[in-house]
């Protein structure tokens, strides 16, 4: 149940299958992202893969002395390009791997193009998704619905992605879905259709307890993606945006050239791996430790006298080199995060957000929101999300003053388009949109809050909020998740408590939810959960998702230039 490993094993197998000699890896735009998430270029280089090419690059050089590993999605465009390539082969031999099911007809088209007999292998390797962390995957699809129903190309890509996750992990699951969501039902049904159509593929060794695939809809919890985050990974995504492990730092004041784009990969950066789930405050002290350690090592380097010294140094060398890069990178990132936190009163904003999400005192909160809206330091996006959270939380409160707050936004200079997002979020994730069976007449936040109190008793100002997913998984693991709200597809039913769980959120998941899943995996032996979503949201991409969903065509989201200032 490790998606990083699953994809990595596929890639290694491809390279192995190609034998010795110089190799080129031929990919499309999507498979390039898929590979780059699990393998560092230098790592692949050591397996004699010297070139990485995109199949859609026109006029690639002919290099017959290279053998080609083609890893491609089975799209019509790729099949056409590949057939063209085979008619005039640029490389010596071809080992072709499709990331998903390919039709017999397409195989025929390719076979008929291979007059020069350059193809050695044609296989399906189901690495058709972005593996972000061992327990987390994404399909990088923002905006999955229009007018609250599936956008067809996105639906079919989602079915492909989700079934490839199942195949790569060798799981043939029982399927449960969120009953209140038509989109969830449709996806669940489509996945089941693929499983029955490709029954031979899904024949795996039976386990005592069958795995469960749970399909949820983001609309049931529109609160989580709106909150500011304080764990490292989530915070970096919220404030700086992580895109396939890459972070663009080019707008950071005084940034050096080699740090304009940095990679944060837990697979290749030990510091990040150890700190991604840490709270921001801890990271500062950990960086200090790292620097001191680095300094210690560089000192020992200065007096390499004996063989033993040298040996120790050389043994440490790769680590050492990695570390020197790591230090400056993380210092830069943390420095920028703290600059943003200070410059835009994010501590105060976040505290208020958490209060809205978890407490019920309406009038003092309204006062605090008004005060923050009056500040010149608070970013527009933070003002907007405060009002959106307020609108969700107090949708049916008698003294609800959404219109007054929207007016305040207007006075602050937020465009009509942006102000309309307040109504959009209510359409997207308001009371009517949520699964009423689960909540009865209570808000999701109230449940979350109560649960949280029951569990811990102590609350922390910035991390009080627990995503709805936490509650759902908790119930699922205990075998208490209501069938009326989350029915099984088909007749089967799980008698035991589930062990292997794949949970997928239509409309995108968040790093806060990924952390919740990580903690389940860590603390519940025997339970393995993998989380996925159509994308991995921060608040900015979520606003885009919402505005596409309500049917305003996504223009508001795309024009939401209210990020960093």
């Amino acid at each position, binding site marked *: *149940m490790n998606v990083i490993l699953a994809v990595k094993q596929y890639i290694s197998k491809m390279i192995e299958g190609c034998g010795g000699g110089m190799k080129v890896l031929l990919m499309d735009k999507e498979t390039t992202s898929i590979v780059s998430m699990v393998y560092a270029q230098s790592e692949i280089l050591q397996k004699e893969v010297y070139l990485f090419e995109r199949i859609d690059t026109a006029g690639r050089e002919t290099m*017959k002395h290279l053998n080609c590993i083609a890893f491609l999605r089975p799209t019509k465009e790729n099949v056409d390009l590949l057939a063209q390539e085979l008619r005039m082969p640029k490389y010596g031999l071809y080992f072709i791997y499709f990331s998903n099911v390919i039709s017999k007809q397409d195989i025929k088209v390719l076979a008929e193009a291979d007059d020069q007999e350059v193809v050695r*292998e*044609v296989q399906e390797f189901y690495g058709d998704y972005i593996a972000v962390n061992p327990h987390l995957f994404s399909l990088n699809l923002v905006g999955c619905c229009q007018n609250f129903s599936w956008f067809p190309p996105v639906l079919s890509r989602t079915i492909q992605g989700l079934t490839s996750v199942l195949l790569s992990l060798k799981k043939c699951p029982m399927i449960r879905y969120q009953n209140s969501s038509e989109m969830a039902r449709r996806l669940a049904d489509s996945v089941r259709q693929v499983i029955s159509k490709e029954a031979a593929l899904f024949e795996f060794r039976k386990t005592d307890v069958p795995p469960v695939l749970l399909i949820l809809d983001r609309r049931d919890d529109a609160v989580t993606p709106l909150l500011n985050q304080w764990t490292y990974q989530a915070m970096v995504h919220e404030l700086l945006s992580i895109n396939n492990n890459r972070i663009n730092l080019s707008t950071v004041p005084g940034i050096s050239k080699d740090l304009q784009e940095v990679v944060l990969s837990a697979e290749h950066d030990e510091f990040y791996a150890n700190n991604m789930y840490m709270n921001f405050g801890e990271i500062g002290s950990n960086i200090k430790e790292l620097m001191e350690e680095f300094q210690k090592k560089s000192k020992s380097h200065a007096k390499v006298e004996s063989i033993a010294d040298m040996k120790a140094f050389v043994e440490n060398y790769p680590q050492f080199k990695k570390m020197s890069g790591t230090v400056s990178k993380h210092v830069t990132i943390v420095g920028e995060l703290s600059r943003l936190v200070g410059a835009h009163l994010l501590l105060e904003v976040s505290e208020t957000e958490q209060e809205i999400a978890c407490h019920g005192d309406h009038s003092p909160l309204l006062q605090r929101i008004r005060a923050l809206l009056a500040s010149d330091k608070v970013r527009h996006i933070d003002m907007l999300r405060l009002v959106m959270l307020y609108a969700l939380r107090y949708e049916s409160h008698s003294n609800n003053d959404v219109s007054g707050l929207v007016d305040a936004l207007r006075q602050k200079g937020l465009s009509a388009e942006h102000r309309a997002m307040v109504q959009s979020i209510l359409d997207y994730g308001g009371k009517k949109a949520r699964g009423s069976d689960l909540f009865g007449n209570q808000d999701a936040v109230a449940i979350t809050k109560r649960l949280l109190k029951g569990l811990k008793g102590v609350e922390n100002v910035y991390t009080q909020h627990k995503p709805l997913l936490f509650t759902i998984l908790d119930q699922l693991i205990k075998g208490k998740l209501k069938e009326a709200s989350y029915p099984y597809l088909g007749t089967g039913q799980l008698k035991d408590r589930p062990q292997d769980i794949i949970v997928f959120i239509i409309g995108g998941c968040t790093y806060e939810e990924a952390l919740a899943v990580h903690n389940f995996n860590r603390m519940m032996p025997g339970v393995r959960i993998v989380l996925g979503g159509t994308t991995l949201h921060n608040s900015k991409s979520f606003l885009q998702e919402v505005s596409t969903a309500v049917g305003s065509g996504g223009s508001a989201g795309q024009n939401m230039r209210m990020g960093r200032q």
Partner: protein
Amino acid sequence: MNGFFKQGSGNLKRLEAGGGEQAVTMSADIIEGFLCPICMKDLGTVSQLQGHFEEEHSSEDKAVFQSLKGFFDKAKKRILGDKLETELTPGGEPAKREELGGLSGYDPSWWEEQELGAIRSHTDTFKSVRDARVDHFVVETNKLLIRLDKLLSPEAPADPKKRKAFERAVVQWIPDNEVSACLSCGRSFGLLTRRHHCRLCGRIMCDRCSEFMASSYAHKLVNPGHNFSGEGFLKRSSSNTSINSLVSQDGESHMRVCKTCRKLLERRDVMTEQRNTKPAIVQIYDKMKMCISDAEQILPDYLPMVDSLSQGETVHNFRQALIMRTKLVKLYEAVDQLSKKIMLLPVPSDTNSRQLHLQKSIRIYASNFMQENLMGLQALPTEEEYNKLREARAAEIQRKIAAERQAAMDAQERERRERLARDSQSGNALSAEEGPQFGHRRVGSSGGSEQSKRKLIANKILNSAGSKSHTRSDSEGGVGTDKGWKPVEESTRAQKVSDPMLQQMEIIKGYIKQARQAQRMDEVVMLEQNLKELTAEYTRQKQQESS
């Protein structure tokens, strides 16, 4: 906190501060310390830097300063409730978290081992479709080549009229009246569009659809050894659309064929070329890979030798290690030079050449390999050093053995005195019947600790002789001699005898046996000498006693 390292060495980037101008430079000397990001002053330690920063710059860049110093403290207190910390890391400090798992914070032991995901092969389907098609090509092409061979035969008549008859004898031409339009482009034949026959398949086409194959190319097709350069087919331009003479300017004669035949012949040619030619880069690369794999074969034998020799052991022959080292140096030099040669191979001049990129990547691959493996070379001592190491080690072992012998003799002496004291106390003479029993029990009690102490000493000697960890972890699990060797106590026999001297001799005999099995010849020699001395001493004592 905001300090950055200025750290340089041959191939480390120098990292400088986050503010101000940026420079990534290579510098040969090592400068270390924490640089103030604002005034670039070098402060020795983090705390000094913090102090300096607070004093000098707190007013200048309040945002940076505050965010870094003040914020962490405040945020840590506010964000990190104690309870939260324990919730996040049950039963441990945050720092211990890394023990929990490798990268990504995931401990492999949480989850079961993972096999390769599902796969499905279409290779067979693909090949059956392709092969049916290609088989047809192969049959057709072979047919064409047989005909071509005949047409090119030296006996073929040169006279145009006879030639035509000869050609028609080799290939049956389709009669003109059976075809009214070009089979290739569909134009109807007439006065302006005349019929032409493909000399290889006999089909009819128009002049525009004709291809003209150079005879030297044709020769090469039937005989791959035939020297050929240039174009296989005439390039068609407007000027030769109506070629009648099949002889071009350079005197090369040409043969009229159809497009289908051209395609089949060219396909064969490309595939033969591909099979028979090895470009320079491949040749050099293969050589380089050979050197790498040779080196990889030597390394697992060589590295344990270095380990052993640098401890002064004589299990391995120093000269032999030296020879292996020289071999490795040569192989590395070859890898270095071959990879450089690859990097410098001439490439097409376009600026964005992938070939150049390929050549550079191969060079990086080779240097990574060398970087990883070079240290084994550095670790081997010089002969002079080795002799010193060996002498030091031998002396050390001698010293320890002597100390041990002394300890054995002391123990014996003590026992003798105790026995005397006992004898005089009880007033009994040495009684034969209780002697062995009594002695036996004593070994189990106080004498036992003496005995185990001696074993400990012997163990220490041998352990210090055993090699430490290997330079390369993957060379572990090699042959028996590579492993650190440690004798196992063979206490049963030793305990049966009561005389400490005899016990000691039994223990040493046991060690000698084990050392032989582990092929530790130094130890065997030294232990044997020790045993000889002990035996001599024991005999001397016995003689003394009996006299």
